[in-house]
């Protein structure tokens, strides 16, 4: 395993490509805007990348401390966490998650949260294996 570092603008093509391979959709504008908002932004926003020893992108994680969202006190929110499928089961996701949690803790929060598609058993299992359980909120939605 290589290193974890803060994302930089030069990471955009590799991030967009990894997300495209995982989701089947190209979202270049979304990732560019996310990088602009999170990478090198305010200290409560984090965009981390994991690199292989040869410097290739192994995965990335995005998170932010937010207070009073949905009536809840401050918590660290994980918005994205993706690992190259060829590099899975090497602890990269866990390292990214641990690093995000460490940064959240440094900011004084004591809880970490995320939202997961309940049909995505792979990512659900990952967060469960990190000790996460059902949170205090229940997501609701409807067609408009």
């Amino acid at each position: 395993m290589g290193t974890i570092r803060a994302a930089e603008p030069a990471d955009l093509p590799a991030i967009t490509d990894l997300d495209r391979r995982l989701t089947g959709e190209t979202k270049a504008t979304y990732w560019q805007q996310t990088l602009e908002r999170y990478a090198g932004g305010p200290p409560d926003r984090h965009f981390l990348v994991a690199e292989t020893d040869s410097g290739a992108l192994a995965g990335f994680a995005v998170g932010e401390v937010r207070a009073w969202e949905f009536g809840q006190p401050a918590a660290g929110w994980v918005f994205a966490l993706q690992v190259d499928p060829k590099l899975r089961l090497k602890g990269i996701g866990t390292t990214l998650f641990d690093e995000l949690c460490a940064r959240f803790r440094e900011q004084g929060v004591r809880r970490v949260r995320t939202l997961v598609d309940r049909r995505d058993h792979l990512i659900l299992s990952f967060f469960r294996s990190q000790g996460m359980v059902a949170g205090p909120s229940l997501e609701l939605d409807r067609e408009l």
Partner: protein
Amino acid sequence: MKLQTATRLGLYAALELARDPERTLSAADLAERFGVSAHHLAKVLRTLSAAGLVRGGRGATGGYRFTGNRRRTTLMDVVALFEPAPGRRAPEPGEATPIGQGLQRVLAEIDEIAEATLRSISLETMLRPRR
């Protein structure tokens, strides 16, 4: 969520044996741990054995050990051995009415959340000390 007794015993036995795959425990050992009849547990162990999750158990004193994959086996895999699959049950009176259909949508939502929860927790995750 209400699970049948056999399902709960299946989860107890699978988890207890998966705790140490090298260890062999008899149906009587396991029954004593959980305070249930060895006869009842032997039946549950036969189901787990047919699914390849445990092996062994000749006679009342025969030992069982875990032979599945802790990381790949989820709570849902064990539950599905004992509980009817969602949607596989016989229709109940009133289900075809608008009220019955509305109620079915609510119950299906609950089932989907329960299944997602059970499917996302591996035996490995259950047995790991909480962080």
